[in-house]
């Protein structure tokens, strides 16, 4: 997994680079949008992490120019500003996620993994989440090498949660992930499937309930 970090502050840039290296990513660090563009022209990356507040050309302009040139690499924006405008603009311009400074390392890693996982789920059949390994074509899953038996709906819910790891997934979204033409489902059904899924996963992944909003999946703390 190769990540390009675009950050002009040396302390933050170095911190992000080290954090990602520690998380098992290969990291290239550049300090400007121009350097980022030439790196992206010559090499291929799985993820770009770009600060909004770059000198000369800012992170928003970088995203726009990448998207206008047809680059679909996922982009995570970092910003020290807390205005809504920045976030909306960033997402409108084609960024995939947004993290406000200051952030903590586990949060950064979770967001990066989720972005890469989502991008790869289209191209590749294999997906990992902590100790879980999923094969999306054969719908098989192992936890630390041991196979788990999941129903089709439990699988769909797990996949939806993992692809949105780091974010809360609403019950409605999970319901549409498992709905089919043959059966009318209720939101209660989602709760039933989630609790079965929890029991089957054991401690391999933690599904937290956020009352009134939905669920969130996290890797177990080590």
């Amino acid at each position: 997994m190769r990540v390009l970090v675009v950050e002009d502050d040396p302390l933050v840039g170095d911190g992000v680079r080290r954090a990602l290296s520690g998380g098992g990513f290969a990291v290239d660090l550049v300090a400007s949008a121009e350097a980022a563009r030439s790196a992206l022209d010559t090499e291929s990356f799985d993820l770009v992490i770009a600060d909004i507040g770059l000198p000369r050309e800012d992170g928003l302009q970088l995203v726009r120019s990448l998207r206008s040139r047809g680059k679909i690499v996922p982009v995570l924006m970092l910003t020290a500003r807390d205005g809504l405008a920045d976030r909306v603009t960033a997402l409108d311009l084609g960024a995939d996620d947004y993290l406000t400074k200051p952030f903590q390392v586990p949060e950064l890693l979770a967001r990066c993994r989720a972005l890469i996982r989502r991008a790869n789920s289209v191209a590749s059949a294999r997906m990992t989440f902590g100790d879980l390994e999923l094969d999306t074509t054969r719908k098989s899953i192992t936890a630390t090498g041991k196979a788990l038996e999941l129903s089709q709906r439990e699988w769909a819910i797990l996949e939806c949660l993992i692809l949105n790891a780091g974010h809360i997934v609403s019950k409605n979204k999970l319901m549409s992930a498992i709905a089919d033409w043959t059966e009318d489902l209720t939101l209660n059904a989602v709760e039933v499937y989630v609790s079965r899924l929890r029991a089957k996963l054991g401690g391999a992944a933690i599904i937290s309930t956020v009352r009134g909003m939905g669920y969130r999946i996290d890797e177990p703390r080590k």
Partner: protein
Amino acid sequence: MTAPSIRKRLLALLLLPAVLILTAGTLSDYFTALTPYRDAYDQALFDAALAVSAHVRPDPQGHPTLSLPPDAIAILRYDSYDSIFFKVTTETGAFVAGDRGLPQLPEAASNPARGFAQYHGEAVRLVTYRAKRATGVLNVSVAETLHKRDRTRSRILWSSLAVDICQLSLVLALIWIGVSLALGPLRSVEAQISSRSARDLTPLPREAVPTEIESLVAALNRLFVTVRATSDAQKRFLESAAHQLRTPLTGLQIQLELLTEDPSAEPVRERLAMLLEATQRLTHTTQQLLALARSDEAGNLRWEFTQIELSEIVESTVADRISAAIGAGIDIGAETEPGAVQGVRWLLLEALSNLVNNSIAHTPAGGVVTVRCGVTDGAGFLEVSDSGIGIPVDEREQVLGRFFRGSNARGAGSGLGLAIVAEVAQLHGASVSIDSGPEGKGTSVRITFQQIPRLLT
């Protein structure tokens, strides 16, 4: 001392001279009218004196005698209102005819002489005519009491007073109306200023402004420009301060976080952990001070108010604090009802996030934190309630002040969290209330907005 009033000044400056001029006019009318009527009445007395003198003839001894029959004398003395007296004497003062006691005017430059005198204890008007007759010079005096003159004089006085009082009232009314109308543009400028919101610093229109206050309006507009520029500069400074402070703090925090995990840092791990904690506290306080500076209404910062769905604020806050809550073993949840208010999104996020942080910090593992929003009695609200340690009843007012920490507060808080909530609420015209949580345990803090929110359909 009351403030000077242009209306009062104008009225005083116009009314006082107007009253004086009208009063002088009344007096001059009165005295002008007095002369002709007095002359007319005096002429009647003089005519009587002439008539009497024409009938004084010498008797056979050559002494002057009045040869008027009693009927003629009765006619002479007849008057509806006054008593008429007369006396004829010779040049030497010898009595010839008439009322013996009637005084005579001393010889005067004019003939006839006119004047006032007393007769039988009553004031009379007296005309004395010196007539040359064959018998020598005669003094003929005719007098009358003053009843008809008094009557006429008071009639003249009252009628001119009535006319002048009418004139005066009319002038006063016109001045009052005129001054009010003239001050109309001032009032419309005042209405324009007082009807605008505190955040509206756009220039006042100068088209309809009268020339006299044009420079005042121009000065106000210049002031608005200055205030706006200052406010914008302060806003830019705070934005940039936020950025300048957060970036190095983020760097520090990440580096320390990584160092704490680094195996080679084993000998200094404890010290690194302390540094990391201090950095996190510094980051937190910085964030709060920035929020406080930016929500400070006295700072005159003009933030854009927009339509805000309360449920979006609740969900963003919960999503943002979920990791902290899960880490602390707290069951966090949202209960949202539709509701919207006019507000500044990030300030509301900041306030709610402070409330949720407080709840997480003061609720033991296994506890419950619930973030709510909705509309009660037409007013939107945001609420965070927890099953934590609660705030003592007698401290609930104080905790909203800056730097106050509850006697049972936990962790290394700055004492600013609830102050931010209070200031953000104030900026939105909302109120903050603190109660016990569900079942009398824990804390429930509610921000209630004043506006009637537009319900979502």
